[in-house]
């Protein structure tokens, strides 16, 4: 039947997206441990928020639209999941930029292996300030 095939295609696309998201999430968790300082850990944060949260949420939308055994409330679940995906996609990027700017301006992040810091040179605060 045609409807059955569409359901299977939606569920398999959703499972592939959730698998990609889980791999990104695990890599981001390892990198959050392994990276040396705050400014490099921002990279792990954005892997974990965009790759590890937005992609599985869109995959969950596909799974929910394909799985008919969830009942009529699955459309409520799909709408909430796509709303959460849009929120995380916009607010995660804004939040990481805001916290990076505040940490550099207030000198509260430790920059341990420091090779170059052009922003503090331009502000006349020395080459590699610590603490």
């Amino acid at each position, binding site marked *: 039947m045609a409807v059955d095939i569409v359901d299977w295609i939606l569920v398999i696309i959703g499972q592939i997206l959730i698998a990609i998201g889980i791999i990104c999430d695990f890599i981001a968790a390892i990198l*959050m441990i392994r990276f040396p300082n705050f400014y490099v850990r921002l990279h*792990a944060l954005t892997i974990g928020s965009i790759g590890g949260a937005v992609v599985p949420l869109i995959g969950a939308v596909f799974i929910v639209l394909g799985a008919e055994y969830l009942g009529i409330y699955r459309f409520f679940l799909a709408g909430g999941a796509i709303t*959460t995906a849009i929120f995380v996609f916009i607010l995660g990027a804004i939040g990481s930029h805001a916290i990076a*700017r505040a940490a550099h301006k207030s000198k509260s992040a430790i920059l341990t292996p420091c090779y170059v810091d052009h922003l503090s040179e331009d502000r006349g605060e020395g080459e590699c300030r610590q603490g």
Partner: protein
Amino acid sequence: MDIESLVTSFLVICMPIYITSFLLYLVRLIKGPTLPDRVIATDALGFDLAAFFVILSILFRSPILIACAIVLSLWIFALDIYVAKYLESRELGE
């Protein structure tokens, strides 16, 4: 094999990987040397917890959990902006 058993078994397999990454984020959250490190660990933990709630609501078949995910992602953004404002101007907004 029907869709229900396929989805359920796939999501059950996904659970331990998610929980392992949550434990790794918790290590950075406890160990983090400065305040911004702890804040970004909380960020990543919260956004992934929102995705985890959606997957749990598919697994438990209870769509009411989706409200927790929306509110959690908004609160994590509020934490970001609040800590950034505190670090920049050394005052709590009024």
